[in-house]
């Protein structure tokens, strides 16, 4: 099987990302070089998080990989399916030095079991 390319002819690149599972939340980060905070859009549902981020300056490569023609990318786009449900309205995000960090609290929080 050929691994799926991380770019599209629509001018979008797939960003590098990482999903870290913590006790009560998922911490999702995206690497978004050439992007400013005001050009980032984050959408979440109960089980997905989607990021669309426009670059401040498009990147153009003259001889791109197997295509061997000029290709330009203006944005990053990626939708991730989360391993379990979250509370989208309680999500928060910060953007610093090209890294977007999204905190997504889990829908099912831990319950303390009484010990008798």
């Amino acid at each position: 099987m050929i691994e799926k390319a991380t770019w599209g002819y629509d001018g979008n690149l797939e960003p590098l990302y990482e999903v870290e599972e913590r006790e009560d939340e998922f911490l999702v980060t995206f690497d978004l070089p050439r992007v400013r905070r005001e050009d980032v859009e984050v959408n979440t549902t109960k089980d997905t998080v989607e990021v669309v981020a426009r670059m401040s300056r498009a990147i153009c490569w003259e001889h791109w990989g197997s295509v061997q023609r000029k290709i330009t990318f203006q944005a990053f786009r990626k939708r991730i399916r989360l391993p379990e449900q979250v509370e989208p309205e309680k999500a928060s995000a910060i953007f610093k030095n090209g890294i977007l960090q999204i905190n997504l609290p889990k829908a099912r929080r831990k319950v303390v079991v009484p010990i008798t």
Partner: protein
Amino acid sequence: MSFFLIAMKKMEELVRVVEEEGEGYKGEGYKNPIVVAGLPDVGLVGTIAVSYIVEKLEMRTEKEKCREIGYIESDLFPPVMVIHEGRLKSPFRIYGNESVVVVLSEAAVPPNAVYPLTRALADWFKRIGARLVIPITGLPVAKRIEISKPEVFAVGNSEEAVRWLKEKQVEVLEEGFIAGSYALMLRECGKRRTNAISLLAQCFPVYPDPGAAASAIESLEQFLNLGIDVGELLEKGEEIKLKARDLMRQTALSAPEMQKGVEQDIPIMYR
């Protein structure tokens, strides 16, 4: 020949360092060079750092100029070649002049190739009379987003190497595990009595980190004194990150098999 000897012979041949004769190649004329290695690892710190060093040294005057002097081949490597300016090249290449040798790779090292690769390189470093081997890599930190200038730590493979580090006031890693090609390169060089020092810059684990590479180059200056200004590396950081996405992705995929997670563990004999 016994089965054991045949097996050993085959192991030796798994990875070959091939020296190319070309314009300006000085053959056996190395003057106890310092070797700098940057194989893909966390944050691609070594790869970014050595690629920048080569780019800068290629522009130097005739005496200091760094040229492509060889490559590394192995049946264990992926069947991949790279094309630059219409020329076919191995992704595992060696650059250098008589006093500096640089080893770099544009493809992730398959985990099953790490042992034979580091052995073959350590043998070759010994053969060219390297006086010091410096693998550059990253030290993943959880709060990298909050660090504006990554710190650099080091590991030496001998008493002498550790003494040099202390003299240069480079912070030495005192406890913990290290994993990956640089860890084995330190050991294999040590077995051949070649001094080696690994420089580890704080970095993002799975994102290319030009800032960490810049810190590593600044630290390297204490040993090599190449006079490389990292300003352009930092200025072009975002472009480098864009170009390095796919190599970072390939490298991150092999991280579990490289036991990179062990680097976060505490050794049982921790003091």
